[in-house]
């Protein structure tokens, strides 16, 4: 098996365990964070802080190296423009996030935990992604 397949699996595993440990695989806890004007649970902010504390030096190093430890190319996004799709897409995502308390990662992890409702959300989310690529491909001509 290719090394990059094993490392990607390890990455997904770490990411999933982190979501479980932090409580972010639980939509009730995420909605507790989004309920800024009710009884507010700040936990999600600390999850982001913990992840970014690791991410900052790692992305700095990655940006300078340009190559992975296995010798491959490091692909970083290059766009810097703030356009309509970025804002409108993020608005739609935020509304969906606020309705159910699920974003993509936690939905997949909760599906792995055997939650039927998480599976239903994930299928709808994948359908939304497919619908988007279908429309995008058609408008590209």
């Amino acid at each position: 098996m290719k090394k990059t397949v094993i490392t990607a699996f390890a990455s997904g595993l770490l990411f999933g365990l982190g979501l479980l440990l932090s409580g972010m695989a639980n939509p009730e806890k995420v909605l507790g964070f989004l309920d800024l004007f009710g009884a507010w649970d700040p936990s999600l902010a600390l999850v982001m802080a913990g992840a970014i504390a690791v991410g900052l030096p790692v992305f700095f190093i990655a940006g300078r190296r340009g190559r992975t430890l296995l010798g491959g190319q490091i692909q970083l996004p290059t766009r810097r423009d703030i356009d309509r799709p970025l804002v409108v897409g993020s608005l739609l995502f935020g509304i969906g996030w606020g309705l159910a308390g699920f974003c993509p990662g936690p939905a997949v992890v909760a599906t792995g935990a055997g939650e039927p409702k998480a599976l239903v959300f994930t299928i709808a989310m994948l359908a939304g992604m497919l619908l988007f690529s279908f429309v995008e491909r058609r408008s590209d001509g």
Partner: protein
Amino acid sequence: MTIDWNAFTPYSALAGGVLIGLGTAVLLLLNGRIAGISGILGGLLTRTPGETGWRLAFTVGLLVGPALWLLVHALPPIHINTGYPLLVAAGLLVGIGTRYGSGCTSGHGVCGLSRLSPRSLVATLTFMGAGFATVFVVRHLLGV
């Protein structure tokens, strides 16, 4: 705004965040890719040649996390109180929105902010603002 001290779990939140950061680090430094989950899932659906293997492996890693956890400890609580029609609507919005906006909480929130990307900062402020507003409307205006 009042802080719900009973629900607030600072230590497990920080520790879980660090694990998420480490997962991101592994994918970046060994695969050279951004751990943006909506991008990974969306990419699986559109099947870019040469990119399917690692994306599938990452997704399987996310899926088997709970099984590995269960070997050591009972799973933490997962409460989904949203009804099925709303869950489907929310799923569609998250699917379309994350692809149109090129990212979600992981790609824009964790990776983008770690890269100090202005695009990701705008995206994160936008989806968090929309999330706060949605919960405010649902819980405090409609009283659901």
